[in-house]
């Protein structure tokens, strides 16, 4: 269970964050939400796919991490295996809280039940980062986290813009993926969507210009290119299966 509280210097001065353990939040995720600003980094390691939010049915943008429910092929041996750590993982165990009408700033919250939270730790280990310095200033690490949360906030808006444009031009299509692994185990991925390249090719110059001017065109092509990462992902799965067979 998560225990989200607003972060306060007075209450949380001594808390440190184990950044490696923070990655464990991805342990059981076969997809992780991503935002437009990081798409080119994601695209070099994972397929970027659209899925639907189970509460609202709205489209979301994600990096695909596994083929089964709860399977994350990028989290092995208790750590993240990719060269790039998605913003959604970087920010753990911090969250942006809800804003109230009178507030102008989003409050930063922390999940005190996160395994990454180390309270009053005497030992100083490599992976431990303080939130506040001894003089009660925000640490360099925490400034980075806040930047990351800022990217995510802005990213949500960017994603919405991207998805609205894709829907407007009818550029999304279901991605039906049937994969057979080396051991002949088969799996079928449902509920994923990708860019319809035929429709993309049919856009007229005015539409393309509009997408270009709203800075969405690179994202669209990055998503298309990233689909090739399906093959390395299958290879990862095969490697896991081979290990299991041995």
């Amino acid at each position, binding site marked *: 269970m998560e225990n989200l509280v607003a972060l306060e210097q007075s209450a949380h001065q001594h808390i440190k964050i184990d950044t490696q353990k923070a990655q464990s939040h991805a342990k059981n995720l076969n997809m992780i939400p991503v935002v437009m600003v990081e798409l080119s980094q994601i695209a070099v390691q994972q397929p970027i796919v659209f899925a639907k939010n*189970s*509460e609202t*049915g709205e489209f979301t943008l994600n990096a695909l991490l596994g083929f089964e429910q709860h399977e994350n092929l990028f989290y092995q041996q208790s750590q993240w295996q990719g060269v790039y750590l998605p913003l959604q993982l970087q920010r753990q165990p911090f969250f942006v809280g809800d804003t109230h009408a009178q507030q102008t700033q989003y409050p930063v919250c922390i999940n005190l039940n996160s395994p990454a939270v180390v309270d009053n730790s005497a030992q100083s280990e490599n992976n431990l980062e303080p939130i506040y310095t001894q003089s009660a200033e925000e640490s360099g690490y925490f400034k980075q986290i806040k930047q990351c949360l800022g990217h995510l906030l802005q990213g949500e808006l960017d994603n919405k813009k991207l998805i609205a444009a894709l829907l407007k031009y009818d550029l*999304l299509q279901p991605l039906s993926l049937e994969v057979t692994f080396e051991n002949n185990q088969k799996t079928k991925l449902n509920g994923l969507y990708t860019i319809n390249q035929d429709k993309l090719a049919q856009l007229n110059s005015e539409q393309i210009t509009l997408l270009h001017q709203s800075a969405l065109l690179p994202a669209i092509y990055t998503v298309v290119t990233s689909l090739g990462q399906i093959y390395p992902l299958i290879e990862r799965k095969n490697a896991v299966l081979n290990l299991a067979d041995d």
Partner: protein
Amino acid sequence: MNQQDKKIKTVVVVGGGIAGWLTAGRLAAHHKSNTPDGLNVVLVESPNVPIIGVGEGTWPTMRSTLIALGISETDFIRECEASFKQGAKFAKWVDGSNDDFYYHPLVLPQGFSKTDMAGHWLNNTAEPASFSNAVCYQEAICEQGLAPKTIRTPEYAAIANYAYHLDSAKFAVFLQKHCTQQLGVKHILADVMQVNSANNGDIASVTTKQQGEISGDLFVDCTGFSSLLLGEHYKVPFKPCDDVLFIDTALAVQVPYDNEDESIASHTISTAQEAGWIWDIGLQHRRGVGYVYSSKYSSEAQAREKLKAYVGDKIESLTVRKIPIKSGHRSHFWQNNCVAVGLSAGFLEPLEASALVLVEMSAQMISEQLPHTRDIMDITAKRFNETFTYRWEKIIDFLKLHYILSNRDDNAFWRDNRDPKTIPQSLQDLMKLWQYRAPADHDFTSNNEVFPAASYQYVLYGMGFKSDYSTTAYMLKDNVFAKSQFDKNKSMINQAVTNLPSNRELLNKIKRHGFSAI
């Protein structure tokens, strides 16, 4: 050009209820009325005649109809107070006891196309006592008040097959807006005063009080019970079927929910009474409830008592509307250049929500087979008449089936319903065949069937009918496969009840977020 070669360029729909707008919309969508060279579709509607909202229940066909009209499912659900319908629950039809119920769901029995699942079920005591529960996961979904899909399912796509319950008054307004704004239907508010004939007996035009003469090449009579063109003008006789279906009166009431979280049933509930049955249809904002009964077997006062017992004391503050029902249909539906759709063609008690589906089927056939010229029209008319005479007869048979299998003995209404003199020969023949085997697709040879064999199975075995396989046990050698299908159904029940949201929850989400098209 002589009159017979005349091209069909203008269709005049008279009457602006759901029948009128659905027919006009289907025609306009199919024949591109919103383009310069498309068909002219004109709908003339009296500003003074109120709409009779027939039936708030639909069939899954309504999804294809809305798609054909180019309507977004989200808009439809939001604007017509629509909710999901996954079939019907028939309560107290067999013996009237409190735990007496069965389902006629919309999903076909598991394994239906591969083996005789009904036969295997009848001879397998290990499977659930309810036929529909043994072969279909939809009864479980309905019993738990769950929706047939999730907010992630695209528009019009289903996890479990579904239709809608809708607010018919709002639906008519919604269709009007869509037809006039998107599809190019021309809307004229005027009272038809006179029908003007051409030399060949066709309708040349109608004269209206406010807008003068309106001429057309084909006239669609959607004037409701008054059947202004087909009945009054052409004097096409009405064929009553009150000797088979006894119901002649409805008492209808709109029942508000007690609170905005009250669950919305995702099926029609039909509860048998001493002289008929009560429908109960859950919309987003209210329930539609009504007692349809035979005045030969119940006084109005008795009927009002029964309705009150069902609805509760709050009925005192609600308006109960009395609607006379004349069961039957016109002897034919298309005469010269005039075709009737909706109540002007006929009406049957709403036991299986056949009113709107007949409108949809008529609208589809008229628009898809719209004759190009007048001289072809007589052929189209003949085919239309054959098709719909068959469909009406089949529906009458199927409705009667619900009555003849009842064991209720609380009123002569039920006993007389079982009297063979009141049962059409066609239905008696089928019942004889089914003494020894389950209804199968080959019992229904027309490609114009309204109810599939599966529907007959759900009603027959839901009501406790037993087909006797004792001399044909060799027909039931597929045990292993049948068992796998029963088991598959059980796992589908588990999956469905874990993953589906409640009907109310999904409707609320649609209002907030809407479905996506893919």
